[in-house]
């Protein structure tokens, strides 16, 4: 039985290498289709897929886990999962969202493991309200922009402000703004109610817009 399986794999791999079009020249859609053909994704095609979407994976992971030092390992795990499951993706046009979800799920798996070993963030937070770790009060101590403010400085400020958000709020706003998920999806993924999602997103936005108001008003 096992012997026959191996035989079929090698034949598939041999067939895949005979693809006339180079993966670099394929559209994203066709590249995904190429990766879905055969028992296992064609390596050249899959490498090209990674090349095109690695920055997206890094972006998602960066915002979800800005203080983790092993995001590169996590990114590898994301791609391993993609490699194994890409055939299950029914709509290649939705690859980006699917990829984001894999990265997010992996992040949450990892977060749960780590939370077992470390005390939750909420214990460190001095302010607790009905939803936990973040107060509605806005602190606008951020210095006003200099005359020669550059966009880069604004982005630096924004990155820092996002990273400073308590974990539950940061992940919720990232799932919304970076990944474009609907509230219901976020609620399902994070295991909280729709009302909590709505509240967390609003509170995260409130704090961010307050901290960055001088930059945002100038946009």
């Amino acid at each position, binding site marked *: *039985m*096992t012997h026959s*399986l191996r035989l079929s794999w090698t034949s598939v791999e041999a067939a895949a290498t005979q693809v006339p079009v180079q993966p670099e020249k394929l559209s994203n859609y066709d590249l995904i289709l190429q990766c879905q053909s055969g028992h*296992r994704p064609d*390596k050249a095609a*899959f*490498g090209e897929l*990674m*090349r095109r979407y*690695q*920055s997206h994976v*890094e*972006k998602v992971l*960066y*915002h979800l886990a800005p203080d983790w030092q092993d995001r*590169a390992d996590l*990114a*590898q795990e994301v*791609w*391993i999962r993609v*490699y*194994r499951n890409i055939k299950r993706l029914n709509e290649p046009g939705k690859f980006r969202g699917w990829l984001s979800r894999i990265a997010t799920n992996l992040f949450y798996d990892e977060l749960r493991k780590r939370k077992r070993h470390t005390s939750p963030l909420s214990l460190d937070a001095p*302010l607790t309200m009905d939803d936990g770790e973040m*107060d*509605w*009060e*806005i602190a*606008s101590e951020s210095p006003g922009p200099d005359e020669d403010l550059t966009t880069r400085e*604004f*982005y630096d400020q*924004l*990155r820092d402000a996002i990273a400073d958000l308590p974990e539950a709020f940061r992940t919720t706003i990232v799932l*919304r*703004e*970076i990944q474009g998920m*609907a*509230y219901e999806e976020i609620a399902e993924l994070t295991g909280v109610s729709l009302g909590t999602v*709505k*509240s967390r*997103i*609003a509170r995260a*936005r*409130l704090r*961010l*817009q*307050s901290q*960055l*108001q001088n930059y*945002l*008003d100038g*946009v």
Partner: protein
Amino acid sequence: MPSKFDSYNSDHQFPEHNQNQSARLPDVMQRDRFELLSAYLDGEVSADERRQVEQWLENDPTVQRLHARLLGLRQAFQTMPVPASNAQETQKTIDAVLERVDRRPSRSVIWGGIAIAAVAVGAITSTLLGENSPVFQTAERNTDRIEKQASTSSNSEPLLVALDKPLVSIPKTPVADTEETNSIPVESNNNIR
């Protein structure tokens, strides 16, 4: 710690009377109203709520300003660069991933293998030991055959006649008319016609 917003909670109850007051509070906005504006931005509001927010957007400078900020924030989320791997680092990641998928058979294959093995073992076991095993089946068939033989030996002729007859009734022909050895099929043919 009471927030600045808490002191304006009551304002929300009468938003239409609150325009002048909220306009004097450029940096502060009542919590529920902000939450509604935020949800509006995401298209996560009811039709009534949408109308309400759109009314604020028409009339309330504070809401207008916050809305503009939130749109700017959304834009920034999309365009903000993050530390990313260069081409070399990306290639390293690609190589590492492809090496790992080569080295380790996928979990699904392992489980698939286990499942196949389990099915095989199950099949063999049930074949050798099950109630419907060939051994018993052979025995049953033999006894069946013996019983049939015993039953048919006494009255074998009708069975042979039945087997000799065609499954589809033959159209009526002059030859068939003359041979009315068995009247029943002929009658049935007539009925069908």
